[in-house]
């Protein structure tokens, strides 16, 4: 009798663990006490994604039930597809392994890079961190602000880039749309070396993401070497391009287009640019757990993310390190995730064609 009930229990447990049906016993409280959570960051220790993750670690540790250790595991390689593929194949469905992605993880996925063996639809988003981008130019070009951008059309410009299928797709396409004569020089090992090339005077136009701009370019602006001219802007609830909240005084690309050409931008190029900008920036960095993770664990993660960003001191620390963007959790994060990982097929087709004809590049 006892034996049978044990067997039944075991069978029930087996069914529950195998098919992921939350059994009533586990469905209550999630406690990560004494556990170690592995956070895969498919980037090296030198970059922005690592900084972002390391920034979040202490807040998440405090907010998660049972205060587990969150250990960041850097797995760079193959334009971030390596670590992401690893998570797709090996990540567990118990909330103990999570993934942090960036725009450069989204782009190969959206463009159908053959190294990609992951699908964003297999994951549940926990948190999304927006970021912006700022374009700045050398003062020797004689352009003081976006209003005399027309002058820039005549200048021959060079731009340091990591490659047209990286996140640099957004600036390169924006320059094309604005009608600037910009020639990219590839082989840069990151945005940092591009900035160094700007400081050397090798390139006279460059862009940096918000945290890097705030920290690294602001001193150059103060010295009068660099002049910020525009941002990528950000999308509001209705999907309209508006000014970046961190730089309310700088116009966004759409405004600059209007200043230069006298009318608002439109057409397939502009639609494609907006789609890829939305994929690369408003939800640039995201935290994921795998789909199939028990509902209560996903809920615990989402609650912890919401709790973390509401903690006293978080806001100030975040503004300093990540810029003044609202960190998205819950429904908001899900909305951003949708936009970032679903580019309309027409936009994708247009961009693939542009890459082929402009750069002879097939991802």
């Amino acid at each position, binding site marked *: 009798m006892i034996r049978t009930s044990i067997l039944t229990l075991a069978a029930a447990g087996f069914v529950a663990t195998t098919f992921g049906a939350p059994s009533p016993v586990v469905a209550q409280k999630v406690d990560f006490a004494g556990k170690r959570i592995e956070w895969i960051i498919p980037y*090296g220790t*030198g970059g922005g994604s690592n900084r972002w993750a390391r920034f979040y670690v202490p807040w998440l540790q405090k907010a998660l039930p049972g205060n587990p250790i969150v250990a960041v595991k850097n797995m*760079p*390689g193959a334009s971030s597809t390596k670590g992401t593929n690893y998570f797709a194949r090996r990540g567990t469905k118990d909330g103990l392994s999570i993934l942090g992605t960036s725009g450069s993880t989204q782009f190969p996925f959206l463009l159908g890079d053959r190294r990609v063996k992951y699908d964003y639809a297999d994951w549940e988003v926990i948190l999304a961190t927006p970021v912006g981008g700022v374009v700045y130019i050398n003062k020797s070009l004689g352009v003081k602000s976006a209003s005399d951008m027309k002058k820039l059309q005549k200048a021959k410009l*060079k731009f340091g880039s990591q490659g047209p299928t990286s996140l640099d797709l957004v600036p390169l396409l924006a320059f094309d749309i604005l009608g600037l004569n910009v020639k990219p020089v590839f082989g840069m090992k990151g945005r940092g070396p591009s900035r*160094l090339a700007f400081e*050397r005077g*090798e390139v006279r136009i460059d862009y940096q993401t918000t945290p890097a701009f705030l920290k690294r370019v602001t*001193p150059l602006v103060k010295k009068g070497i660099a002049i910020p001219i525009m941002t990528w802007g950000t999308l509001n609830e209705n999907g309209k391009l508006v000014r970046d909240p961190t730089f309310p005084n700088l116009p966004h690309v759409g405004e600059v287009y209007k200043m230069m050409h006298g009318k608002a931008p439109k057409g397939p190029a502009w639609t494609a640019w907006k789609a890829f900008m939305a994929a690369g920036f408003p939800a640039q960095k995201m935290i994921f757990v795998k789909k199939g993770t028990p509902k209560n664990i996903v809920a615990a993660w989402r609650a912890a993310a919401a709790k973390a960003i509401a903690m006293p001191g978080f806001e100030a620390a975040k503004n300093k390190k990540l810029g003044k963007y609202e960190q998205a959790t819950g429904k908001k994060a899900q909305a951003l995730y949708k936009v970032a990982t679903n580019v309309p097929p027409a936009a994708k087709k247009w961009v693939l064609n542009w890459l082929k004809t402009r750069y002879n*590049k097939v991802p």
Partner: protein
Amino acid sequence: MIESMISAFAEITSGTHLLYLFGGVIMGLVVGIFPGLGGIVGLSLLLPFLYGMDPTSALAMLIGLVAIIPTSDTFTSVLMGIPGSSASQATVLDGFPLAKKGEAARALGAAFSASLYGGVIGAIVLTFFIVIARPVILLFTSAELFMLTILGLSMVGVLAGNCLSKGLLACGLGLMFGALGGAPATGEFRMSFDNAYLGDGLPLVVVGLAMFAVPEIIDLLRSGGSISKSAKLGSGWTQGFKDMWAYRWLCTRCAGIGCIIGALPGLGGSVVDWIAYGHVKQTAKDSSQFGKGDIRGVLAPESANNAKEGGGLIPTLLFAIPGSGSMAVFLGGMELIGLEPGPSMVDGKLNLTYVIIWSLALANVIGAGCCLLISRNVAQLTTIKYVYLAPFMVMVICFAAFQATRDLGDLMVLFAVGLVGIMFKRFGWPRPAFLIGFVLADNSETYLYQAVQFYDWGFLLRPGVIIIFVLTVISIWFGARNAPTGETDLADENKPKPTNMKPQAYFAAFVVFLFAWGLIDGVQHSFLGAVYPVGICLVMLPIAGRLFYVTAKNKTEHAANFDYEIEGDHAGKEGVPGLVYYLTWLAGFIATVMLVGFWIAITGFFLTFLRVHSDASWTRILTMTTCGVGFITSLSWIMVLNFPGGFLQYYFKLPWPLS
């Protein structure tokens, strides 16, 4: 400036600062002594402590950790011939032969006192240089950086040994191996068979281990006995210190070179050691002992690589561009603490900059001092019978290689390039020439492409480019003047020259094949992706073809004629197993890893290898296995590292450490 110096001096001599610095050094020493770990792993260990610490103490700890990394991996490179990082590859060349001669303690003593000295000289140079560094560094554009890579490549002449064509071919192979993977200009994947791992290029640490450590392991196992042929330790570290002092001007020069090249962002620290090594070889009056255990070959790279860390601080602090892996770690740590690198480091925060520079020097002194003190004891390892050490070595090398990208591909590359390394050793091809080509391949191509894009071909007339070009010519002239003449510098005069050159001809044919393959692969890419590898192959093919002709025609009097199997120490001895025998063991091990994963494979390897090759009892074998595997398991657990998995792990989910 003086005020900043005074306040910085007060800061670093305070008790708490010293204490935390010391803590960082000890931590770095424990992590760094294990090849392949070092900086990044050290940081992840340190991170939990850094949070909540006050910035100055955290900074002290961080500096202590960073300073010790290029010092502590000297142990394995000198004692075992295992270069754990790019900072110790050149040290192996003469350090390991010294250990084999039974002078391990002396070599370590020389290495650590040179590290210490180099670190201090570097700090002195930096103290004055940092104030004017910003504009100076901005003068080095892609054009000047490209020319510097040419200066580096010109060292091949001195690193080539007695046969220039072998040297050039070795360098060419290095360049070609380095060009494998994504092309800088177009991102096309060259020579990578559509493989994602190869698409990222070959990792330097793995190539270093494959070229130096793998051939040595096989060689040591075959010749039997212990690493130290006399099973003695010889004179102690005081002798090494005296050596350093006798060559203090050499060390000063190398420290200066290290400091300046380390300060140039974008060139990367890995070149420094080779340039220092080439420098000592081309300026030495008698360069016949290099590669066989010349103490100067240890002093030069070691004094340069600690100064290099100091130099590397400049782009990190002033531009937030880290020049090396450990500086990337340092930058990450600085940001965590809340310190922002940038121009203000010399404008408003000069005292903090001095705290950092001098702490680094102080940490060098403490770290090298600690290493000196324990060097005699650690050197005892070289007197142990090698059969007992071998499984530990295989474990250490494979684990270190795996840390490069944490991919099973690391182990396969280790084996494949290891085969090339074994052939290089056997036929007397200069491995340093290969390494210098490999190290500079990516930089030379990238900067050439960028310089042409930015300045057109007119970049060749930039004043900086012309100055570096003149330096290159002087360097070649020096090298040519001191080129070894006559007999092969690796050969033992008492042994006969090989009479049958067939094996050499096979290898030459293989090299011809490699370049031909590079050419065929190259022409399939767009112009910008193809021009560099195709250019190399077109230059190298005739040289390789000629060498094949010479060897196939059995021209035994030609300078290229060398075969370690006939001229080596083990040649003609009884009971020496063939080259293939131990290679099969290694291949078997790596194949087992692919099947059942690293953890099970290494346990099995320990058991079978010791059982077959040593006369130890089962109890003793089990104890050794438990120690070895237990050590690596706990290390991985603490540092959140995974072991390489195989097919078993691909299909089944297993609990750690089996997973």
